[in-house]
């Protein structure tokens, strides 16, 4: 029994990591209509930015901020100089997916000779165990959970209470109508790339910290879990992605406790397939934060 309680605690950490990444990904898609398969590579690039800072003696937490800034700027530039020109020329959705896949491969292969194929780790000891009954997590893991909670609340506040958030929702619902109503959709979309890019960068550092060590190839692995959470929750729905993250995070840890660890991803994705069969639009497709206001 204790193992399952412990697994619940570990699940909280996993779902926090997934939630930060998945919410950024699904917002990017929901508002800009862009399925960005380079998201995982931006994550891992940001993780390397934090790694090199950390290697130079800078705290990993400052590195995390730097990673978020890097992810933000990198994503913004990717959109401005690669994705947006293709979109302006009317490239179809599937074409844009292929473009993002190409970008993903380019980033990974450009980085490989720079960062090498050796796994690297942050110089961070985790801060010692903190026990809450049978749940024992490190200080860093509690911080990761805290960061995720704060970010999810901030995203909720952004989308619900701010002019930018409302403009994002309007752009997501109908960009043409939003533009005709005076909303500067171009700037809104720039803002979306900056914000979701920051989430992406921060998620990369958090995921790398969580995994203990990372390599350039982690980008693809990150993306699969993020896609799963985003699809499970309802494509383009930030709250759905949060729920998807909770489900995937907890299911993987519980299945590792109950069965052989090698099946934990199998179980998580079996649940994903089951949900897709029963509810193809995802859990929150009709009532998401990005649905039209009012």
């Amino acid at each position: 029994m204790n193992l399952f309680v412990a697994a619940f605690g570990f699940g909280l950490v996993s779902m926090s990591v997934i939630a930060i990444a998945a919410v950024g990904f699904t917002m990017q898609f929901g508002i800009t209509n862009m399925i960005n398969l380079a998201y995982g590579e931006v994550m891992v690039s940001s993780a390397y930015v934090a790694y090199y800072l950390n290697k130079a003696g800078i705290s990993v937490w400052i590195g995390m901020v730097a990673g978020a800034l890097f992810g933000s700027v990198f994503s913004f530039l990717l959109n401005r100089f690669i994705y947006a020109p293709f979109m302006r020329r009317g490239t179809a959705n599937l074409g844009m997916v292929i473009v993002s896949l190409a970008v993903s491969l380019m980033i990974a292969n450009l980085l490989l000779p720079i960062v090498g194929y050796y796994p690297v780790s942050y110089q961070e000891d985790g801060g010692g165990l903190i026990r809450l009954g049978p749940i024992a997590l490190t200080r860093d893991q509690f911080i990761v959970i805290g960061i995720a909670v704060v970010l999810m609340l901030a995203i909720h506040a952004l989308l619900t209470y701010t002019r930018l958030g409302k403009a994002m929702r309007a752009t997501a619902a109908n960009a043409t109508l939003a533009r005709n109503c005076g909303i500067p959709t171009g700037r809104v979309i720039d803002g979306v790339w900056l914000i979701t890019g920051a989430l992406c960068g921060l998620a990369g550092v958090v995921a790398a910290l969580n995994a203990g060590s990372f390599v350039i190839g982690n980008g693809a692995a990150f993306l699969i879990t993020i896609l799963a959470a985003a699809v499970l929750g309802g494509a383009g729905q930030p709250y759905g992605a949060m729920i998807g993250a909770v489900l995937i995070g907890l299911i993987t840890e519980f299945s590792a406790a109950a069965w052989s660890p090698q099946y934990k991803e199998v179980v998580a994705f079996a649940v994903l397939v089951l949900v897709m069969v029963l509810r193809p639009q995802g859990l929150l497709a009709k009532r998401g934060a990005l649905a039209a206001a009012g």
Partner: protein
Amino acid sequence: MKTFHRASRMSLPLLAAIVLAGCGGSSSTGGGLGSGPLLVGIIAPFTGADAGLGPAYYAACLPAALSINNNGGVGGRQVSCQKFDTRGEPADAVPAANAMIASNSNLMAIVGCTSDEASSVVPIIDRAKIPMFCMTGQSEFNKTTLKYFHRLVPADVYDAYAMVGSALYGPGHSPYHKAALVFGNDIGSQAFVKPATDAFTKLGGTITINQAINLAPGTSYRTEVAAMLQSKPDVILTEALGAAGTYLKEVKSQNNGQMIPFLGTSATIDPVWFQQVRDAIGITDFLKYYQGVDLGYTFSGPAYSEFITNLNASVSQFADAPKYKQRGSTLHLYDGIIMSALAMVATNSADRTVYDPKIIDIGNGTSGAMVVNTYKDGVAALKSGKSIRFVGAGGENQFNQYNNSQSGYILVTYDKDGNEVKVGELTPEQTSTIINAGGA
């Protein structure tokens, strides 16, 4: 716009399904050595969970090619090395092997073929009649009849027995009686589980838990480690390449900063593995709690000196090459390539069907054969009409009728700089006891 938007949203699950689903020549004939460049193919994982393996084999080929090329080539033909990435997956390995063979008629030898892909690529290479030197320990090759297959390392079963010996009889600790098995869920790692379990339990030990862990990058092992610690083992027996750092760091974290001893297979004698685990748990705990097993290399002598000279000279092509100076597989595959080249010179033929059988003669030596340690000396001896036995950087070879060359194990650890240090060896009696218990 709305319709467009909706359509694209519907496409995301479809795309996710696609992405998830995705996760998953002839030689010269006749007499003479021919002309034109020769190629050694390295078919191994260069990406994926076992991406650390391929570079070790590439680091074998580069110095071998230099050693050959600096001494006149193979009858004047220069040797080069080319990587063929299997990603450690049979599904990717088969097309990689087919493409390698179809697009290169000048392959003189192929090296690599780890346990990840050997079952699928070895028959393909054998059908193409290309001599190969494989780093697989799978038991299916213990009595193989494939003529072009060569193995310079013992089967995994003996690696597993050596680990059990280290646990029961190793120096610096009282015998461990409760072991946790933590192996990757790949084919190569799982090959150790049954022989280790059989031998350890029949000698009175208990396997507290057997974990086949997912080696996918970015995986965390918190629940797995909690379960392992709950089973209260004395020692962890492990080969989980790519995941070891993450797993062991979690062990230290959940165990209040205390490590428990961990014993690795010979594949853990690897600079990538060393760096990963050292960075994860710190060098002090690494040196205190780790022991491994390896084949009994001397890391000295003229063959090794020649290897080191050429390995260091390979940095222009592969900056990390010198890191593999004590990697057993690097030494053996270097020897395999040199033996192939010497076999070509000995038979004066680039016909692989002609020089392939000669490789065994050169490795084992025939009666009255002159022992040589370098390609240069081998060519000189052959040109003077002598038969030769090549004893290379990895030591003597003793091929049996199944083209398997066997040798004994030693117990090792690392020093702080990542160099292998011998800490002991198993007596013949201990070895015999373990092998009998394991039933090999």
